[in-house]
């Protein structure tokens, strides 16, 4: 199948799931009535969710792609640098000390940024970023912060935990469209920066030295992209909490479909991840309506088996 046809199919699919995302929910609105004034409020809410899904899906998947290439590790994911546990910890602390809900996203963002700074500095040796120490420090900080989260929650009871649940497992419920706009800016900018380096990513995924021999200054680009991906995931955590697996499986599936060339892979993955997230959000809203299942649970339930199949079936990643 030609690339153009694949692109067309993804666009059509995206159009279809966007319409589904708008008409399906606790209340089903027939397509013909979608633009009626009575449905305005619901439509706006659902539109925000669809936009959030596109933003979150693309942001997580593209940062996943960038990290996988620069670390030459197909298992890397956007939360590798400890952003998720940093944000979670800050949010728990905010709940416990009674910070107003309005400032929760800010607290999460600061927590994420703090963990990035720690991990980044831990992995720096003589001005160089060593892949292995970056991954290790990310894991260590995640584990350490997570244990503090559990510690705090067990001390301060279930109230905090309940509040935290949607945060730790993610949700695309958008409370404030201004926050969505605020987050969209760094996320879209970040995706553009990563695409700007698409060619460099191809070279870097062959190894840092190989990239040097092709005229690509791998160390500097690595530093830029680590910060960009961290900024994307820290920003996204503010609006959607922690949503796992998206940054891992969507890039993998798209590599199977279009190959590893980042110039093609990045735009195609944006589309695919948007579709995937809108569908997951739809499931989280409608499967056990009116109860909403955290979207991170859905992505994990779909993601884990898909991932295992990919791992077992093809050596090609």
């Amino acid at each position, binding site marked *: 199948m030609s690339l153009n046809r694949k692109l067309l199919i993804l666009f059509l699919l995206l159009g279809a799931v966007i319409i589904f995302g708008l008409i399906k929910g606790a209340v089903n609105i027939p397509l013909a009535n979608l633009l009626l004034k009575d449905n305005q409020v619901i439509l706006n809410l659902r539109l925000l969710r669809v936009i959030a899904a596109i933003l979150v899906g693309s942001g997580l998947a593209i940062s996943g792609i960038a990290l996988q290439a620069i670390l*030459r590790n197909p298992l890397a994911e956007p939360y590798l640098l400890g952003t998720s546990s940093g944000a979670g910890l800050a949010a728990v602390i905010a709940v416990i000390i009674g910070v107003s809900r309005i400032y929760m996203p800010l607290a999460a963002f600061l927590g994420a940024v703090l963990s990035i700074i720690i991990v980044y500095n831990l992995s720096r040796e*003589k001005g160089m970023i060593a892949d292995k120490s970056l991954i290790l420090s990310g894991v260590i900080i995640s584990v350490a912060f997570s244990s503090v989260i559990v510690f705090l929650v067990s001390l301060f009871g279930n109230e905090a935990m309940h509040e935290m649940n949607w945060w730790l497992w993610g949700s695309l419920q958008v409370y404030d469209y201004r926050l969505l706009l605020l987050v969209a800016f760094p996320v879209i900018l970040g995706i553009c920066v990563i695409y700007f380096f698409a060619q460099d990513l191809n070279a870097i*995924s062959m190894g840092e*030295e190989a990239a040097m021999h092709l005229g690509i200054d791998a160390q500097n680009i690595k530093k830029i992209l680590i910060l960009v991906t961290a900024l994307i995931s820290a920003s996204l955590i503010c609006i959607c909490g922690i949503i796992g697996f998206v940054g891992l499986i969507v890039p993998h599936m798209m590599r199977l479909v279009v190959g590893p060339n980042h110039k093609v892979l990045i735009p195609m993955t944006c589309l695919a991840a948007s579709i995937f997230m809108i569908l997951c959000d739809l499931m989280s809203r409608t499967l056990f309506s009116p109860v909403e299942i955290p979207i991170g649970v859905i992505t994990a339930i779909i993601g884990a088996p898909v991932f295992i199949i990919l791992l077992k079936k093809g*050596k*090609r990643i």
Partner: protein
Amino acid sequence: MSALLKINNLRGGYHKEDIIKGLSLDVNQRDFLVIIGPNGSGKTTLLRLLTRVLSLKEGEILYKDENILQMNLKRFCRKVAFVSGDISTDFSFTVEELVLMGRIPHLKRLQYETKRDIEIAREKLVLTDTLNLKDKRIDELSAGERQRVIIAQALAQEPELLFLDEPTSHLDIGHQVQILDLLKKLNRGSNLTIVMILHDLNLASAYSNRIVLLDQGMVFKEGTPEEVLTYQNIEKVYKTVVLVNDHPVTGKPNVVLVPGDR
């Protein structure tokens, strides 16, 4: 002959330890220069310094009288290419994609490969006899095929100077000769200067016009195969007893090992 690459009093290596300790060498245009030396003598480190992967501590490297450290990295990579002994990656690029990457030094960011770039890549695939592999993924190739693809990628950079780090180490004798014949052809026909590390002294003798024997980060001896490959030099540097006679066909020195336990 003018010096294409001039290495003056080069010193450098890893962290605290200097591997290359004050090395000077001229590479002339159209040289087929082979670097030999025991393990740990600094052959690979030297190439990594010359291709700007490692930063040097002292000395200078001049490419056509221009300090290579002051050249824009992409411009440098349009003049000088490097072929490693092998590549490994978890990302399954096809052979064609990989060879096209050789055009990166000629492209701006976000610029797609032009028709000309694709033609050049194709030409190099033909040259290295890998055109029939172009849609295969690199992890599906044999070691010999992979080596030819790596060379095709470097050639796609259209360099004037090609460095190779043991390009034949994973290959059987048939493929060794095939690769070296190809390089010799390019050296003669396309004005390509070649600097190559080889372990096999007889291959070095058969293909090079100059040999550099490294010992402990310094040039022990440099000259024609006849001048360098003497049993005295080899015994001193490799601490191994050998016989050197003339190759019955080429007349070049032929190094024969003498087993210690007979």
